[in-house]
């Protein structure tokens, strides 16, 4: 059985926390994610939502950002859609280089490292980022 949830957020910095809370609550309710995996999901969603908000702020777009979450079969899928043009993940994916002392550049490597699946799909006027997290081996008592 798959359950679907939807959240629409304005492209503002405060929305990133809303996206985190939305997905983590769904993950908690599913009972398939232990503390460690919940932390991973929280960070994963934060990174994807941050990229979406930043991209739209940079473009001056007021369009809402859609967060879709599907949970079922020990698996949670999040799709976040922005309206900030298209983005294609570089191949190979970037790795952080802290020695360069960059302020940015940590987000994408974190996404790629934490998600069990990652997909960037260019859509009409924007990007849908799809990430999947698999649950813990054992069911977590909730």
């Amino acid at each position: 059985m798959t359950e679907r949830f939807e959240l629409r957020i304005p492209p503002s910095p405060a929305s990133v926390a809303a996206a985190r809370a939305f997905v983590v609550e769904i993950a908690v309710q599913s009972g398939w994610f232990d503390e460690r995996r919940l932390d991973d999901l929280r960070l994963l969603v934060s990174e994807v939502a941050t990229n979406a908000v930043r991209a739209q702020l940079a473009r001056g777009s007021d369009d809402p950002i859609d967060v879709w979450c599907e949970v079922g079969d020990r698996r949670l899928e999040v799709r976040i859609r922005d309206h900030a043009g298209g983005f294609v993940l570089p191949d190979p994916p970037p790795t952080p280089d802290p020695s360069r002392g960059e302020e940015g550049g940590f987000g994408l490597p974190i996404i790629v490292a934490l998600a069990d699946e990652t997909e960037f799909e260019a859509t009409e006027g924007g990007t849908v980022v799809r990430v999947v997290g698999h649950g813990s081996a054992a069911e977590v008592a909730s």
Partner: protein
Amino acid sequence: MLFDARTEPRGGWVEVIVLGELDLASAPEFRRQLRRASEAGEPIVIDLSGVSFIDSVGLGLLVGADRRARAAGGSLTLTGPSPRVDALFVETGLSKLLDLRDSYVPSKPAR
């Protein structure tokens, strides 16, 4: 209130105490406190023990602050991260770059 940061002079060093979630929303306030802390030209210590969550935005700000402190001949020390936050420093390779400690002991007496 999900985030608070304040800067305290400690007599010979400056401490930035951070509470809550360090992300895109709290970045401007954190950046302001980092700038304040750097004005004294003293060693900067950032107390992370009250940080419940940090993502790449917060990590980036810490890396930038560290780089600026070193460029100015100063130092930046991070203290008391929770196990989860500490693990993220390790996973991103930043633990090799940043000065992470349980607590800060000034190299010379404060007075």
